[in-house]
């Protein structure tokens, strides 16, 4: 290969001290390798978690938030509060229905909104699943199953049976997979559900689903909307939540605020509903970047040290090059080329190492856990993570190499040649 003389010299330097070159390269390799592994693993885990949360929580849910503010009494309206204190001991709500009153109208209105992809009414209630003498607490969700599937992707999360069974089978029920196991029921078996009001009904299991979140799979079940209305003794307009999926779920917070104001009900967005999980995702992201950054900076310091030492050992060579007509910028080019070459080789081998390690982790079995439905560690392979690794790795080595190289370019040859 034909190179300009500066690069020829850099190449010869690197090849003459193979071990030093290799050691310096290994620093970058491990730095970038570990960065790739960490970011792939962490983002894999975050994406898995976000997916699970998103499918389990609608983008926006409109519901009737029962007022628990008792600081004002109706008595205040008819008495002179300047002279009289009205004391009501232990107030509690009475004759309040927790449903969304004009649900039909709201749903029609929402269906016309271009930002919304799908709307699904929901009637949710607490139930007990009776299994012989054992009662298991849970939530029953009455839904139009096809609408609901558009929101949560329930159709893809079925372990046994199909969601359409709910439409064809009279009194069918879809149980969470862990719940079905706990109740020891399978497809075709009957389960008895009791409401807190004392009514009860028998349903036939027509499918089981798994979201991968223990808090859901162990408590939730789906039946048709009319069945729950029947169970609770309510009319066919009675729903507790109107859930919806947006075309762009990042707008959820703003849109939710707008709907809350428009319909006079509470509107909760998915980020708000999963605030604690979102915080932990953010913290994991921050930690990943801090650790990756540290790894790369440490690799940079490694290069800085090695280049400084190399230059210290080559003072005479630098002086003679300068005497023979190499300028300061030639000298800088030579040593900068060396560190950038080390950085480049380190970055490429680092990516390979990171990819192999990520691939290894992907194939590691995840410790068996009823609450989380993954068999292997979640790992993502995003090209932009790899890009970032290379760019940042090269940048670190460039800066690390630049400082000693600039120092080398300023060396006064006379001081060295005179000895």
């Amino acid at each position, binding site marked *: 290969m034909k190179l300009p003389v500066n690069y020829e010299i850099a190449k010869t330097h690197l090849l003459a001290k193979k071990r030093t070159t290799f050691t310096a390269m290994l620093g970058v390799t491990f730095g970038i390798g570990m960065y790739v592994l960490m970011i792939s693993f962490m983002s894999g885990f975050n994406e898995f978690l976000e997916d699970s949360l998103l499918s389990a929580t609608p983008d926006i849910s409109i519901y009737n938030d029962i007022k628990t503010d008792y600081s004002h009494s109706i008595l205040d309206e008819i008495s002179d509060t300047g002279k009289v204190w009205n004391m009501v001991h232990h107030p509690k709500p009475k004759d309040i229905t927790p449903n969304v009153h004009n649900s039909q109208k709201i749903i029609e209105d929402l269906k016309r909104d271009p930002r919304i992809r799908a709307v699904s009414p929901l009637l949710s209630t607490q139930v007990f699943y009776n299994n012989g003498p054992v009662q298991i607490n849970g939530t029953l969700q009455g839904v139009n199953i096809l609408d609901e599937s558009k929101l949560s992707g329930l159709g893809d999360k079925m372990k046994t049976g199909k969601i359409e069974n709910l439409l064809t089978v009279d009194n069918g029920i879809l149980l969470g997979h862990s719940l079905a196991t706990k109740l020891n029921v399978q497809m075709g078996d009957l389960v008895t559900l009791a409401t807190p009001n004392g009514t009860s009904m028998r349903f036939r299991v027509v499918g089981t689903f798994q979201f991968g979140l223990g808090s859901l799979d162990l408590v939730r079940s789906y039946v048709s909307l009319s069945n729950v209305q029947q169970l609770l003794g309510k009319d066919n307009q009675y729903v507790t939540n109107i859930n919806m999926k947006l075309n762009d779920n990042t707008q959820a917070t703003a849109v939710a605020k707008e709907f809350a104001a428009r319909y006079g009900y509470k509107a909760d967005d998915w980020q708000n509903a999963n605030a604690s999980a979102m915080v932990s995702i953010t913290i994991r992201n921050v930690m990943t970047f801090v650790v990756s950054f540290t790894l790369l900076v440490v690799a940079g310091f490694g290069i800085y040290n090695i280049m400084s030492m190399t230059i210290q050992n080559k003072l005479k060579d630098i002086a003679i090059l*300068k005497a023979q007509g190499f300028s300061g910028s030639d000298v800088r080019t030579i040593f900068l080329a060396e560190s950038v070459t080390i950085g480049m080789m380190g970055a490429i081998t680092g990516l390979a190492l990171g990819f192999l390690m990520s691939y290894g982790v992907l194939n590691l079995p995840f410790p068996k856990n009823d609450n989380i439905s993954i068999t292997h560690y979640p790992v993502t392979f995003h090209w932009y993570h790899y890009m970032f690794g290379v760019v940042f790795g090269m940048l670190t080595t460039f800066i690390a190499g630049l400082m000693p190289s600039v120092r080398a370019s300023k060396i006064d040859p006379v001081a060295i040649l005179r000895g």
Partner: protein
Amino acid sequence: MIFGQKKLEKELAPTGTTDVVLESIKLNKSFYEPDEFHVLKDVSFQVKRSEFVSIVGKSGCGKSTLLYLISTLDTAYTGEIHINNRKVTGLTQNQLARFRNEHIGFVFQFHFLLPEFTALQNVMIPAEKLGKYSKSEIEDRAYEKLKWLGMDEFAGKLSSKLSGGQQQRVAIARALINDPTIIMGDEPTGNLDSTNTNIVFDMLKDLSESKGQTIISVTHDEDFAQKSDRVIEMKDGEIIKQ
């Protein structure tokens, strides 16, 4: 002082174009570390084409300092230096680097070859920097120079594996590769035994006689100085004999 003044007037007039390759006019230089020390005092002299000049004097008389000034490596001085009818005083570092590359060859006491490169590569590097010839031409020329110095059989050997005398001969070949006007030597034989000293001297002598190249060399070696064309003797920063 008067002597220097006269000389200056004479030099500035019509000369220059003839066969003067190096001219220094009233060079002054001081060191400020550790204490202020006036190392060169109004040093003026001329060197003609194909002269073999030795600069001698006791340690600390300023002869090495003078050499580094006229070789353009050291730019912290007052006065003027002209090489090949070109004023080099005041040129930028990059211009000087280019100038040295083309016009000045160096031979040092401790040979200073680049240890990772072969003898041939060491000779080729300044020529590759100059970029006047193609790589294969440079290789041929470098090989030729080595052959002239009797070093062709060691061309492919790493320079760190060569003996002191061999290294010095490679260093001379390297100094010659760009056919410089002047070859500067800082104790070129200071580190060699008498056999090698003679070899190196004969080669330098041959260069000045047959190829018309100018040799300016700082030396401690009495014999070496006596055998050269002209001796410049220095004492306490001044030229006392030339």
